[in-house]
């Protein structure tokens, strides 16, 4: 397997963010004044780390020997045959240590926290994967770790809650608002405002105030860099389409970023369609949202006419969020990426189909990307290829999925 260059923070064809942390009109740094210095400090530390060969080689070594990178690009022949149409490849982020792509970012940011001399990190988590990843990196690096999690998510992701505790993290339940990811982020921001001098906030997706969307994207872009080399190795040419689910948007940005300049590669982001595209029953920001500012970034936001943030719903906790990363908002308005959504039911069907055709149980988040693949692959020719980001494994979801799939039967 080839060596992949560790990180890049610039792309000639896609010069975002600009100096003010903006992606077109999106992004920025909408935070209470107390945090401005912390964001400045973080950006400076990040830029110096990225220019430091020792930091980069430490990161690359840990990605290889601890995370298990590169993750495979797996040709899913039985799924391909079942659907009929384009050849389907799965980028196996489910095989990364802790079972999802979230570790790529958590490890990078915890190394940064250490470099900044901050002994404590905090994180928000929805599905629990980012919390687990941050707790893991903290255990590895000897950092104190507190994770904020909505009490509704604690209920539907019990296994991950216990994993975090096992890893030495404290899980703090958040009972305000919708008791999900958005509320966990509010509480993490309140903690950060209070303890900013010795605490780093490991934000888990490409959202929040600049420089977070850039940092998370860059740490996740290893996914696309690997995938691009791997598909060239295996197919001798670039893929026709990339498909990824979009919560905040980090696994999608991670896969897409390296391909943005490849204009023949189509890209599809899949949001949570929930039970219906009516307010409160989904989390498809590009289908039902409007320009707004939530939690530090200008982007698309599910909100009412008065600018109050809307309730959201998804069977998958990791996609259940009222806003979306600002870079996705730019890619949506520019038309470079197509955004669509998959319903709870479609995701549950995809969850089962991938399990029985390939022996791979996907995370419910990733199952949204599989659901779109099920619709799209049959419309494509057999000599075309799709790379689907299999952002995580589904072990955390089996109990939740069983409730829907077995409907009343015992597991």
């Amino acid at each position, binding site marked *: 397997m080839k060596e992949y260059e560790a990180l890049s923070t610039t792309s000639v064809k896609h010069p975002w963010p600009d100096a003010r942390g903006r992606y077109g009109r999106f992004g920025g740094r909408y935070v209470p004044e107390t945090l*401005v210095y912390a964001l400045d400090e973080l950006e400076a530390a990040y830029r110096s780390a990225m220019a430091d060969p020792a930091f980069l080689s430490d990161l690359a070594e840990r990605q290889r020997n601890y995370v298990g990178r590169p993750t495979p690009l797996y040709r899913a022949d039985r799924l391909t045959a079942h659907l009929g149409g384009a050849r389907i490849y799965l980028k196996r982020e489910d095989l990364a240590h802790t079972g999802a792509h979230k570790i790529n970012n958590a490890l990078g940011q915890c190394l940064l926290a250490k470099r900044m001399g901050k002994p404590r990190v905090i994180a928000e988590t929805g599905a629990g994967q980012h919390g687990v990843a941050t707790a893991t990196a903290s255990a590895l690096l000897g950092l104190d770790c507190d994770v904020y999690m909505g009490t509704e998510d604690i209920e539907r992701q019990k296994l991950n809650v216990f994993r975090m505790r096992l890893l030495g993290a404290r899980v703090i339940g958040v009972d*305000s608002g919708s008791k999900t990811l958005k509320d966990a982020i509010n509480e993490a921001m309140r903690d950060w405002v209070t303890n900013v001098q010795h605490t780093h906030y490991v934000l888990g997706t490409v959202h929040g105030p600049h420089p977070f969307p850039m940092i998370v994207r860059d740490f996740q872009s290893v996914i696309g860099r690997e995938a691009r080399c791997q598909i060239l190795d295996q197919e001798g040419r670039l893929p026709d389409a990339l498909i990824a689910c979009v919560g905040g948007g980090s696994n999608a940005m991670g896969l897409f970023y390296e391909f943005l300049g490849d204009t023949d590669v189509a890209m599809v982001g899949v949001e949570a369609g929930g039970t219906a595209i009516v307010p409160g029953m989904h989390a498809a920001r590009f289908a039902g949202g409007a320009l707004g500012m939530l939690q530090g970034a200008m982007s698309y936001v599910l909100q009412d006419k008065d600018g*109050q943030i809307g309730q959201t719903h998804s069977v998958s906790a990791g996609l259940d969020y009222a806003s979306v990363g600002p870079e996705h908002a730019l890619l949506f308005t520019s038309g470079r990426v197509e955004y669509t959504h998959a319903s709870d039911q479609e995701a549950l069907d995809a969850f089962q189909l991938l399990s029985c055709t390939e022996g791979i149980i996907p995370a419910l988040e990733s199952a949204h990307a599989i659901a779109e693949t099920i619709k799209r692959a049959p419309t494509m020719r057999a000599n075309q290829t799709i790379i689907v980001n299999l952002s995580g494994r589904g072990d955390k979801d089996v109990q939740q999925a069983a409730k829907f799939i077995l409907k009343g039967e015992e597991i």
Partner: protein
Amino acid sequence: MNRIEARFQALKTQGVSAFVPYITAGDPSMDLSEQLVLALERAGADVIEFGVPFSDPVGDGIVIQEAAQRALQRGASLRKVIAAVRSIRRTSQVPLLLFSYFNPILAYGIEAFARDAAEAGVDGVLCVDLPPDEADDYKLALDQAGLCTVFLTAPTTSDDRLRLVGAKCTGFVYYVSRLGVTGEQTALAEGLKDAVTRIQRLTGKPVAVGFGISTPEQAAAVAGLAEGVVVGSAIVRVVAQHGEDPALVETVETFAGNLAQAVKGQT
């Protein structure tokens, strides 16, 4: 002249500090909030911060979060807050500062908001999650409408940024005297005098200190250091405790009156 600026100037000649109480608009109801504003004026408020409830108030502690939640459950919105100001202006000329988050203003439309707020009788706006470097359109619209733009400063604000805030603030500069969200504190931040002096020097504006002041003793101590004393959560808590009480308005008036007297050095 803008009522907020006029009030700070008048107080300067009298050599006393401003008492700046905060309440959340719409808690326990918009009608009662209007009455509470008038009660705060009678109690001796110089500027009243009228909080626009928001679903995701990241800058606020639990007391003000819960107040916002109650207000939203009763149907409060930015539009209704502006209507309440219009109604207050029928009987009162007390300087009024809206304390908001950015998204409700963005959804309203920045220019429409500035126009409607000024027309209703609002004197200025403080937007918690809008630092001055993101506020170009907002600043332009509020300036044109004759509204004060108050921005926050914090213990972590650098000298350069203090100069920036000074250049963008009108009326006064708000100093968040400690790291954290709104809420009552038992002890005041150390080194407050030095911090306030530094902000006065670098911004050239009057400074109001807030976040954590809850007792008359603390209010009196801060009044000796800064041009303004903001009390928020302590008053919102009294409103919450007496939300159903027919004596709500008098209770808040008495509570605020004690704070006002402490600020004016009359205790």
